[in-house]
């Protein structure tokens, strides 16, 4: 044994600094039994099962907690330790009713340890009269106190992973027990149903609806990427065939994945019920005599080809368009845009990034040269200061929200800019609640303040940016007091926020749709970017720009060229080199003229100029603004084909409906908000005749006479790598599979390139980061006579977007309807009661919803989610768009309200 080594049970081991005996022992293949330790959580050191002997130390030490010191000799399995462990386990056994320990359960670590370490009792232990509580109040989670051993893993998981503080120990000594929330019920607690506690419970005292029964023997697990939000958590999906159908049984987070480190949110873990929902589309439908009737794939595809071809011949290329799905795979998106560009010669290609982060993509392209996050999720743990703008990640990107919350609990400073008092505001150093639609004014005010305070990274601005002088002159034209008054934020608060921004390290800017879905969306992102440039944040660790992309593959769909003015890899339509690559891969050159964006396509449809539309996995009837207009547009089309899981309001209006495979059934890749390309693997087969999106497009292409031969999605991806080599040249499905749980962040131009967590480290992709002169213009829904409130629409935790999937899961019960959030003062003024029905009216339309009176919104602002079709939130939203990026304004609609 050298001086740097220690010995455990005679095996030599060199401890890492601070490494616990438990961890060091595991490295050399010695498994020390324990009940309360869990990797990644702090140590409770309370079960005492892992006690070990250390030579020269009179006391026994908890191996989970004691560091292994070099030179020490540790014994983990002596007769004394065995006897003590047996005694301790017998003591634990005696405090539970015998039946809950029962036959060895697969999840019950106590039962396993009893079998391994403790002799069977001479007589059955009497059920000890402990104050057991049980809870079945929640649609997803369950607690059985009789099984609880007070190891506190759940307490630590809830505090240290999710940060929710649902659990605590109450009472003391032998009377101590686990408490849930204020009343020992999940339903009235702050629980978000992330399920981290269930994962970490060693005895099954905490379980959930998917873990009530043991798994069948033939259950197997596959790793894939979550299909809900743009965080891109890695899932371990356990599935088996039941009643002749493949079923998803349980979903857990992949512990070794960088993105989520084993954590998931309620949607990722539990919201898989859509997969086996009885109303899944299982066969193609074609409209005959006004009704959609089942038909064969051959017939459906032939019909699609016939109709598209006819319209193309009769009305020309400009009469056709497509919307790729940000919910589907890169491969599916790529093929759909290729089909329309190559076969029909149109650039009327878009995706739903248009209605969410198109302003971000455009602004970043203009300012930095790359339409994607400059930073990575990992930067949130490195950041000393985080600015969160118009995003509510604990609900909309919950796993990132949990990481951000932990970072703040550890001491990172948080500035929240949001008209709503979102959950994270409670932890923020400062919360600014500007009036909706005033972001540009607010960022200008902050920039002025930074300049005035001299809190600018002058060297960075001088060496790495351009346009500063003009920008500074523009700022000088604005008066700080006027800007502040316009935002409805006090000048003192703006000064305090600027002081936070100007702290020791450059900030990490995290933004969401509250910034982009405005008429000045692109300009607001540029103005936020100005702050990042002034503070030297871009290209530095723990800093930069990290937009939270909404949908699982909205980054990917844009990367794939699903935009009317961009080719795969964001090549411009007139980029000669890119054109040459396309010609080689596609057999046709790209067209020089930009096509129509999604809103423009809908307008063209209503005006009779666009006659055929292919919609892949999207429901504009519910998700796009001004519902009446969308309905008129879809009805005016000659031909609508929709790839869908369910008969959505949009699908109901189609001539052909093609049954689609969902993310648990697809093969391919998604790209998350930090440019991380990750594998999607089918956990179960799609029901009936439902087909993967990429395959349907390829089949349709052949029906349209194209000679497309792809062996599978891997083959499609190889073509993507050839077409957009700067981003994807080094990537393939094989390489991604080999990368394990982590995927690879683009740009990855070569097979030996490791991927790129941070952009613009040495220089900006466009050379220098660019300042712009941005006039501030009040939005068209600002100060509208007779409509005194500003309506914001958005999402809540338990649903995803239009709810097509989440409404078909048990957690629907947690948010069974959309509610209109209204400030108590406004509610009092309008005579609106909590839970009362409100008539909500804009210049565009009206609907009725139930009110939730809450301080979460500022006075004068209202918030409404749009997860339920019967809410008709988008009857109220209007037609205004950001003129640069064509993104609709969902975040400021002038409305009036009255009790209904």
């Amino acid at each position: 044994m050298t001086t740097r080594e220690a010995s455990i049970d005679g095996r030599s081991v060199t401890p890492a600094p601070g490494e616990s005996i438990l961890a060091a022992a595991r490295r050399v293949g010695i498994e020390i039994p324990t009940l309360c330790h869990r990797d990644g959580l702090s140590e409770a050191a309370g079960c005492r099962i892992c006690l070990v002997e250390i030579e020269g130390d009179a006391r026994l030490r908890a191996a989970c907690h004691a560091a292994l010191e070099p030179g020490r000799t540790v014994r983990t399995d002596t007769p004394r330790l065995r006897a003590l462990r047996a005694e301790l386990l017998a003591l634990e056994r005696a405090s539970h009713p015998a039946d809950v320990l029962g036959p060895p359960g697969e999840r019950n670590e106590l039962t396993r340890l009893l079998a391994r370490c403790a002799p069977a009792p001479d007589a059955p232990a009497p059920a000890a009269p402990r104050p057991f509580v049980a809870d079945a109040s929640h649609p997803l989670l369950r607690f059985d106190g009789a099984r609880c051993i007070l190891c506190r893993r759940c307490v630590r998981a809830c505090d240290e992973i999710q940060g929710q503080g649902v659990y605590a120990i109450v009472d003391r000594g032998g009377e101590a027990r686990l408490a849930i929330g204020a009343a020992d019920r999940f339903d009235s607690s702050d629980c978000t149903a992330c399920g981290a506690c269930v994962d970490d419970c060693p005895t099954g005292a905490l379980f959930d609806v998917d873990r009530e029964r043991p798994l069948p023997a033939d259950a197997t697990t596959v790793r894939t990427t979550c299909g809900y939000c743009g965080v891109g958590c890695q899932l371990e999906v356990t599935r088996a065939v039941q009643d002749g159908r493949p079923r998803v049984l349980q979903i857990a987070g992949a512990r070794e994945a960088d993105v989520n480190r084993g954590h998931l949110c309620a949607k990722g873990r539990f919201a898989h019920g859509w997969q086996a929902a009885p109303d899944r589309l299982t066969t193609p439908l074609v409209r005959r005599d006004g009704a959609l009737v089942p038909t064969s794939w051959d017939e459906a595809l032939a019909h699609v080809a016939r109709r598209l071809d006819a319209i193309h011949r009769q009305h020309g290329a400009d009469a056709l368009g497509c919307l790729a799905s940000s919910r589907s795979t890169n491969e599916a998106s790529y093929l759909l845009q290729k089909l329309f560009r190559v076969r029909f010669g149109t650039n009327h290609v878009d995706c739903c990034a248009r209605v969410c982060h198109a302003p971000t993509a455009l602004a970043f392209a203009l300012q930095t040269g790359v339409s994607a996050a400059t930073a990575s999720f990992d930067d949130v743990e490195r950041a000393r200061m985080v600015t969160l703008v118009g995003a509510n990640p604990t609900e909309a990107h919950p796993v990132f929200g949990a990481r951000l919350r932990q970072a703040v609990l550890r001491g990172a400073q948080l500035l929240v800019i949001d008209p709503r008092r979102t959950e994270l505001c409670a932890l923020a150093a400062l919360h600014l609640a500007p009036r909706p639609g005033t972001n540009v004014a607010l960022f200008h005010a902050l920039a002025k303040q930074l300049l005035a305070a001299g809190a600018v990274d002058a060297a960075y601005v001088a060496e790495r940016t351009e346009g500063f002088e003009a920008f500074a002159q523009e700022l000088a034209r604005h008066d700080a007091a006027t800007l502040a008054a316009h935002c409805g934020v006090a000048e003192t608060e703006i000064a305090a926020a600027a002081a936070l921004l100007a702290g020791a390290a450059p900030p990490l800017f995290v933004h969401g749709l509250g910034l982009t879905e405005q008429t000045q969306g692109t300009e607001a992102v540029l103005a936020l970017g100005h702050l990042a440039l002034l503070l030297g944040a871009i290209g530095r660790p723990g800093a930069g720009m990290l937009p939270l992309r909404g949908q699982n593959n909205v980054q990917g769909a844009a990367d794939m060229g699903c935009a009317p003015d961009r080719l795969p890899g964001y090549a411009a339509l007139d980029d000669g080199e890119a054109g040459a690559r396309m010609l080689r891969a596609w057999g046709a050159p790209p067209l020089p003229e930009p096509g129509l964006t999604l809103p423009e396509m809908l307008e063209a449809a209503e005006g009779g100029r666009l006659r055929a539309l292919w919609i892949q996995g999207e429901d504009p009837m519910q998700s796009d603004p001004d519902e009446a207009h969308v309905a008129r547009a879809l009805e005016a089309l000659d031909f609508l084909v929709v790839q869908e899981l369910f008969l959505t309001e949009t699908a109901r209006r189609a001539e052909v409906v093609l049954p689609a495979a969902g993310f648990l059934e697809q093969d391919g890749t998604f790209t998350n908000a930090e440019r991380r390309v990750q594998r999607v693997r089918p956990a179960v087969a799609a029901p009936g005749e439902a087909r993967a999106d990429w395959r349907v497009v390829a089949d349709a292409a052949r029906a349209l006479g194209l000679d497309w031969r792809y062996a599978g999605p891997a083959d499609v991806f190889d073509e993507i790598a050839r077409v957009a080599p700067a981003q994807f040249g080094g990537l393939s499905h094989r390489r991604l599979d080999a990368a394990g749980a982590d995927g690879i962040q683009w740009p990855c131009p070569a097979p030996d390139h490791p991927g790129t967590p941070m952009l613009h480290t040495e220089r900006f992709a466009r050379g220098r980061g660019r300042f712009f002169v941005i006039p501030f213009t009040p939005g068209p829904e600002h100060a509208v006579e007779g409509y005194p409130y500003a309506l914001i629409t958005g999402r809540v935790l338990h649903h995803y977007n239009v709810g097509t999937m989440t409404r078909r899961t048990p957690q629907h019960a947690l948010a069974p309807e959309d509610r209109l959030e209204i400030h108590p003062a406004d509610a009092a003024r309008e005579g609106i009661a909590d839970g009362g029905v409100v008539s909500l009216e804009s210049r565009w339309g009206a609907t009725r919803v139930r009110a939730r009176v809450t301080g979460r919104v500022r006075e004068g602002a209202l918030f409404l989610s749009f997860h339920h079709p019967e809410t008709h939130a988008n009857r109220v939203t209007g037609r205004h768009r950001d003129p640069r990026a064509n993104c609709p304004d969902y975040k400021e609609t002038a409305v009036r309200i009255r009790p209904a």
Partner: protein
Amino acid sequence: MKEPPRQSSSGATGLGARAPAAPRGEPVPGAAHARGVRSFYRDLGASPGEARVCIGTACALAHARGEKAPLPAAAARREVHCLGHCDRGPAALTADGSLVLPPGRAARPSLRAMTREPIVLARLLAGDHAELARARAAGVYGALASAVAAPDPAAAVLSEIERSGERGRGGAGFPTGAKWRACAEAARGRGVAPIVIANGDEGDPGSFIDRILLEEDPHAVLEGLALCALAVGAREAIVFVRSEYPRARARVEAALAQAREAGLLGDTKPGRLLPLDVRVVSGHGSYVCGEETALLRAIEGERGEASPRPPYPTAHGLHGRPTVVQNVETLVNAPFIVARGAAAYRAHGTAASPGTKVICLSGDFARPGAVEIELGTSLGAVVDEAGSADGLRMIAVGGPMGSLVTPDAFDVALCEEPLRARGIALGHGGLVAIRADADLRSFLLRSLVFFADESCGRCMPCSLGSRRLLAQAQAGLAPGADRDAFGRLLDTIAQTSLCAFGERVPVPLRELLALAGDDLLAAKPAP
């Protein structure tokens, strides 16, 4: 324009540094958390207006003799394990904090010294010194005044305390100087402001010297605390006083106000003798909070549970700051050491255990009270001084975490090595004399009730074990395997528990069974 930004917090330039940050290990305050804290402390669940009736060892012996504290018959009451009036009990405390003793009891404990010169009781032997004027006339704050005037006060005080060889008087016997140095170095090394805490959570039934010091010599406690702060470089201090000592709290508060008024200490305004913020924090009814890690959690507003060490509080204490937690009596020695020098201190006691110790005498002694002895004095000499009645069966030494000592071992010298060699724990120096006719089964059951009541619940052996032991002993066990298993469980708890409470409480119980026979475990005492 500002400096170029530094590297990010973790210094992690390696992008894709994969290891997630270490877990915080701090609770997130939700609704359950508040319930957890509230339900931990006995006082917080109590109904208003409740009187507290002491059932500590000596008071329980007195109850068994038919004595009781004269509370109004209708007064709502609850039992607590010690109120610190063991020498004159049985005691009770009304809801407004007034002490109730049986008629005829002295207002003040009998205080005596067997030392060449008293150190801890130096002033108290002459009476109450809570008034600043009287305390200063007796020399209090003189050591602090001379220390701050020295060229390098911190180093000088630290060095003097180290050379004195003083050990903590709370029971663990850790060298005081080493503790202070560890804190000072951690604070310097990490650049974090240290804090010092006087531990006035004297919970051991049978000990009451800290109560007396806090009540009647509070300036000496504050001076000792100030010297500690000076030595470690702290500008912030806390006096933690258990809630069972309401008069002590009031008196320390008053003394602090006087010291502030006189410009001595208590805040950090310029011109103070020692700029030192001092606040007084009350306990809420938990014995384990006398343990330093539990005490820190209590001050932080958390459940007063013990935590595994390391890290020691000197490195990561209150809110993570380097912290000295020092027993009250220990602190009162410091001014003597600083004023008179380590050599003068070492003239007392033995080479390995310099100084004196106040021994608290209660139970069946002829002359209960508190007596200051030279360390190294034999137990028998103390017993003789206190005068034991006929038929003395044994002495409970050092409270519930101490030892039971029978007359055949009274020759043991009360200092470090001889006690350790005999396996005796002096604890905080309480001696409770127990006569031959005492009901030892009641003594056993009371001890088990204490164990189960006060176990914090952090570790499994102590929380489940204490409860099981009590249930079994109450039900009674047949001779043979069941009683053997009872003894084994005591041993298991002692060997596996997380803190000294679970490690030590079983020891005297084991001794009791050895001494009196396991028939104590029979449902009724054997005929």
